[in-house]
């Protein structure tokens, strides 16, 4: 399958959640998490998904990233249904079409910042193909680190970096395969206010300058405030299905 990196015109949904239902099972009790969510992400927009803890926003993000599968409903990316796609196709989707960043950065502790950024390319390519193109790939990774302002930390391991630096490295890693969509799960949740603002500024810059579509999940209304479009979640449902296009 080829990369689903479709350049959608503005005001076209790149990602759609249609009537998504998801519940977890604890022993024999069924705990509903998502109760029929409909949501659209438009290409080129910075969308924020706001809700309190337990509202189901992280679960929705995992479904959008195909890390989990919905019990009912469908997820569409670029017009194609991806939630029930075969495993290899979903691996490719995660690797090429989207980038994901997390609250706790999730960098690989054994690798340096540069190697962490290179990881998606290493996963994408066979050993031989990687070796053939390693100089080019390395240049690209360095450019990414430079873009997030972390080139001076290229050879540092995660435990030698600050939280903000680790999140920058995670952003560079997410952007390494030039995805169409960046999913950010509480990207500032573990950072102090000032560093959080810097990360937000970086993400907004990526959206404004490079036209990157971003879905930002947060519990903080002030962070969500700067988004092009805001979806609010409560108890497994999106409150305002006709969220306003703010910008």
């Amino acid at each position: 399958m080829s990369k689903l990196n479709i350049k959608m015109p503005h005001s076209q949904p790149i990602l759609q959640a249609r009537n998504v239902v998801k519940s977890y099972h604890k022993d024999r009790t069924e705990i509903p998490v998502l109760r029929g969510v409909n949501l659209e992400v438009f290409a080129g927009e910075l969308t924020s998904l706001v809700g309190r803890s337990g509202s189901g926003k992280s679960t929705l993000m995992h479904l959008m990233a195909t890390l989990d599968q919905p019990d009912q409903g469908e997820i569409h990316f670029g017009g194609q249904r991806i939630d029930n796609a075969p495993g290899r196709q979903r691996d490719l989707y995660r690797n090429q079409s989207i980038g994901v960043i997390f609250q706790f950065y999730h960098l690989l502790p054994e690798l340096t910042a540069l190697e962490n950024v290179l990881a998606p390319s290493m996963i994408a390519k066979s050993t031989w193909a990687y070796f053939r193109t390693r100089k080019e790939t390395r240049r690209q990774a360095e450019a990414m680190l430079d873009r997030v302002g972390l080139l001076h930390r290229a050879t540092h391991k995660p435990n030698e970096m600050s939280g903000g630096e680790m999140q920058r490295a995670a952003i560079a890693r997410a952007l390494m395969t030039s995805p169409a969509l960046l999913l950010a799960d509480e990207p500032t949740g573990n950072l102090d206010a000032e560093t959080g603002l810097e990360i937000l500024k970086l993400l907004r810059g990526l959206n404004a300058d490079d036209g990157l579509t971003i879905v930002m999940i947060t519990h903080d209304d002030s962070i969500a405030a700067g988004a092009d479009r805001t979806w609010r979640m409560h108890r497994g449902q999106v409150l305002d299905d006709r969220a306003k296009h703010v910008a």
Partner: protein
Amino acid sequence: MYRWLLCFRYLRTRYIALASIVSVTLGVATLIIVNSVMAGFAAEMHERLHGLASDILIECHASGGLPDPTAKLKEIETVLGDRLVGSSVSVHVPGMLGIEFNGQLITRHVNLVGIDAETYDSVSQFGRFLLHPENKSKVSFDLRDAGYAPLRQWFPEAGWAYRRQKVAYDRALEEERQRVETTLRRARGESLPQHDSSSGPSLSLDFSSNLLANDGSPGPKKFDESIDQFPGIVLGISTCSSRLRDDAGAVRDHYYCRPGDDVRMMFPNASDNTKVVNQKFTVIDLYESGMSEYDSTFAFCRLDQLQEFRGMINPSTNTRSVTTIQLKLAEGADLNIARDDLRRRYPPDRYALNIQTWRDMQGPLLAAVRLETTILNILLFLIIAVAGFGILATFFMIVVEKTRDIGTLKALGASSTGIMSIFLSYGVLLGIVGSGVGLIGGLVFIRYINSIATLIENVTGQEVFDPTVYYFSSIPTIVDPWTISWVVAGSIAIAIAASVLPSLRAARMHPVSALRFE
């Protein structure tokens, strides 16, 4: 690509995993050392056993032996054809050896073998086990002048020089004894008895003069021990010596007789009405093969002389009987097939012949060594298998520790098989490192095994490798590349097998729960 990078990083940062493969390393090293030493011992033993025995041995049970060996050999030649490259006939007879030592008679049970030195050396190694350098290249049953065992420390003076010296000493002693006796008798006023001064104090001349080896002149001749010898005999070194440690701990041999001394042999003659032949021989050399079984039971003399002593010559046809035929087969010929061919030609129910290969003769010993090696191999592989469970446990811990990273990799698009292959490759790497270090360690150990044995002896005071028991001056080792390949491949396979379950667990991990793992 990422899987190799991660494997190498894990290898460099997870020392606990390295600890878990130490047992693999030790197991591999031990297996290699044990196999090499056992192979060395087995090869040394094979070489000696085969060197001592011919390829195929045909023994006749009857005491009179085979009446016409030449005709038998012709038949054997037609049975074996091209496979036969050498043959020798000999006479084996049980006997008793009597050695005069310090005025006492030491008796030993020996197998007296009458051999034709020329052909005997063509079917088995005989000369190379003798002590005199010239006998090693060409065996002679005549006493040599001197120069026995030039490389052996503390070997006493032997040969004609020693014999003349001894005879002169004995004669001087005898003269002195006679003088004292004469003086005493004169003092008591008794008459003097007649003495034969040529006989020793206790050895008397009771054999016919035509059996003397140096008998060149016609008619009876007076036997002079200082210039004449009895028929030559080669004694197994352990029949006439004992190996002990002196006070300083050094290994010393004590010889009851040596080349130049005379010994007595008693053995049955070949007639139906068996009588004992009592014959004196002169020791002309000693035989040391390193196999104590041979060295302590064999004595060799000339075939023609033994045939005469035992009466194995048919007076009417002048054919000589033998008891044993030794055959040497061409290189690569299957001994068992040749033996079976011969057995078909001479079925045991009609011929009193025992046809055996050298392996048949040493069958129990060789089988015991094989069994020992097999059991040791099984035990040591079990040790590596135990090490495999250590790897399994450690890997499970590492997989749990890496749960979040596994979730991250899946979020970055790594497939389940990719995740699995990280841990499988890690297992392969650990196996390679573990058995590689074990391989190098084992080979280094083998290379310096004798120095290590000496070191252990010095430290513990306990002799690792007792030369009074083994007759080897150093520990023999043979490094067989095939064995080593099997050992290394086997341990890597065990390491891989041990990492399969943890790898599967890693691969099946749900990415969301992995990402949430704290």
